[in-house]
């Protein structure tokens, strides 16, 4: 087991002018489950492939433990790509299906047997070892495939969108399985996904990338409560955070007919506008505040989501999403007012997008 370090690691594709991954600095602890997440083209898969040895590193270094693997061939890195389309062999027993790669590598028989036994125990497959894969359920087969990676006892597991070809129901189920298995094995794992819900539910820490640049790396909780910039604020969370461009006024920002107080020191560095972020669940119905014209009411039982637009004549139109009590939602077409809950407002510089601490 080992740590993983990206040390200013950079990937520039031949003929490309902008790096696909730009001086990535990221340290992953021994045994940690780290998720790389971001929109398509952000560099998350490229980063993983640099670690796997599939992409050349044009600048910086990559270390597994203390070992610089920047130029080491993939098969000598002691990593395992986990279930990239594993197939099970119908005529071989479950034990042979799990251990065959060790056999190819010339591992002694006793050693193979021991490792397969160990993996089977963790995967709850012990009583099936002598059976053929056909006799197993879909979930058990999937565990056999995981067993194949586990018996290799790699230093690091790499997973690139492993759930992308599953349907929604199976995806949620498998997500939980992978996360709990990783915790039991304690093997350092780097996991790539475009789905922020997957990232937030699985990772010990989450690294958000955009345009080849690391935006933030934090625990899911911290990422949700304290996004470092507008991009992370809008990317993490579903439904997304409301991001409103508002006028700065003396002592705060204008929220409709109220003023949301902001410390003078925080305001001094910004211009005459800033971006205020507030999550849908942090907006409260109120007599005054942001006027919102309700366009759609999505009733979910206990809660309801209001989709509306900011009713400010002469101003840029903003979409607003708010979570309200499902038993007494406002009516479609009506205009209501919202104020943010105290302490749940995020402020960002309108130009740089960086968080303003207040």
């Amino acid at each position, binding site marked *: 087991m080992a740590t993983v370090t990206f040390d200013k690691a950079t990937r520039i*594709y*031949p*003929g490309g002018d902008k790096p696909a991954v730009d001086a990535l600095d990221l340290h992953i602890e021994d045994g940690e489950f780290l998720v790389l997440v971001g929109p398509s083209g952000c560099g998350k898969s490229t980063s993983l492939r640099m670690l*796997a*040895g*599939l*992409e*050349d590193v044009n600048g910086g270094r990559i270390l597994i433990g203390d070992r610089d693997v920047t130029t080491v*061939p*993939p*098969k000598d890195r002691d990593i395992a790509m986990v*279930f*990239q*389309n*594993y*197939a*099970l*062999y*119908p*005529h*071989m027993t479950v034990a*042979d299906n799990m251990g*065959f*790669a060790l*056999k*190819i590598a010339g591992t002694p028989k006793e050693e193979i047997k021991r490792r397969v036994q160990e993996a089977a125990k963790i995967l709850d497959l012990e009583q099936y070892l002598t059976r053929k*894969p*056909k006799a197993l*359920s*879909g979930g058990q*087969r*999937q565990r*056999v*495939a995981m067993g194949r990676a586990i018996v290799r006892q790699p230093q690091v597991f790499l997973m690139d969108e492993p759930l*992308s*070809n*599953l*349907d929604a*129901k*199976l995806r949620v189920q498998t997500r939980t399985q992978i996360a709990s298995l990783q915790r039991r094995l304690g093997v350092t794992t780097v996991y790539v996904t475009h789905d922020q819900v997957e990232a937030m539910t699985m990772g010990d820490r989450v690294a958000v990338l955009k345009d080849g640049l690391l935006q933030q790396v934090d625990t899911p909780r911290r990422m949700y409560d304290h996004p470092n910039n507008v991009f992370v604020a809008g990317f993490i969370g579903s439904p997304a955070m409301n991001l409103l461009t508002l006028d700065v006024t003396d002592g705060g920002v204008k929220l409709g007919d109220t003023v949301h107080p902001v410390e003078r020191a925080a305001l001094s560095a910004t211009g005459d506008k800033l971006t205020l972020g507030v999550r849908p669940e942090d907006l409260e119905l109120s007599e005054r505040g942001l006027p919102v014209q309700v*366009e*759609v009411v*999505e009733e979910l039982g206990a809660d309801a989501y209001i*989709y509306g637009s900011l009713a400010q004549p002469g101003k840029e139109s903003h*979409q607003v999403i708010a979570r309200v009590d499902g038993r007494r939602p406002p009516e479609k077409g009506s205009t209501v007012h919202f104020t943010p809950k105290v302490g749940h407002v995020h402020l960002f510089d309108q130009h740089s997008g960086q968080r303003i601490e207040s």
Partner: protein
Amino acid sequence: MSAPTTTSLQITAARPYPELLDLPWDVPLEEWPDKHLAALPRGISRHVVRFVKLGSRVLAVKETNAEIAHREYRMLRLLNRLEVPSVSPVAVITGRVDRDGEPLNSVLVTRHLQYSLPYRALYSQTLRPDTAKRAVDALAVLLVRLHLTGFYWGDVSLSNTLFRRDAGAFAAYLVDAETGELYDVLSTGQREYDLDVARTNIAGELMDVVASGALEVDMDDVLSISDRIISRYRALWSELTEPESFERGERWRVEARIRRLNELGFDVGELAITTDIDGTTVRIEPKVVDAGHHSRRLLRLTGLDAEENQARRLLNDLDSYMAAADRQNEDEEIVAHDWMAEVFEPVQRAVPREMRGKLEGPELFHEVLEHRWYLSERAGRDVGLDEAVHSYVDSVLPSKPDERAVLGVDTQAIRVIAER
């Protein structure tokens, strides 16, 4: 803002296939009635796959999610355009709902490759080690071609490949492009990873055939066959791409290199030649090589579409025809036309209609030439083509299986992401 939307059936296809609309898209693929099916696969695969008869065509229909279906469709189209041997995509169908309005998976439709064989169909009871070797050799050629094009496969295996007979050898075609990616140039790491995956998968697939009792070899033999993918790949890759230096006086080596590449079935599209400052050493490096040297020449001369080795065989026969008729100085196209009319076509016509689905034309011709050689040796005299073809049709061809449409999802390994 998300509000419920109504979906309607969407067909994305390069060419219109109006018959596609006649298929029961509101029924899960697993429950399609027999009347639409060309064959029913017996095994379990990661996705539900069915072979469907549509007019004179056989199509493979695979259920998967919309994103993957569109991605693989685009990838296969690109590979087809780049003339990489792969199955041809026909359509992607999304927005399926069943009769109760519940959404169904999207599908990818590809055309079944005629006369192709899954690797487990390369043997009936026992797999001869030699056959396995030839399959691996064909896969090595395919992998080199894919890598030259910039295609990283990610899941190289015998199961993801189809094989067509090619004059005693095999020609390999890519079937499953789901994990693949196309780059301008592949990194060494990507190529090495594909090779490592290929070696492991081939060994696993052979171990499975051994476990089934259809291959009687030990573990060392399995490894020696699976290691071939690496040795064959490396030999071909270096011949096709590596620079070569020699003394200025040895300029014949430029010609020799091009000939070697032609022999391997590749045309040289671009060759970089550089000399050092004092001009004593010459360095050559192939920059662009295109597979299909012999098949292109055969196509140009005769209009016949054949695999590389078949083409070589047919061209050799054309050469002997020219020599025997003393027509070497004549226009090649004209002689080729006569060879078609006097030699190739009569052999094809000698095959009774009911046996024509057994082998492709060029492969049949190759077999008849082999048979003639065998007859001549036994008789101790030159047996004519006419006699050979009749003997072949009477004694050999009837026992051959029909290979026009061997549909083989049942021969795949069991995919793990299978059922709920």
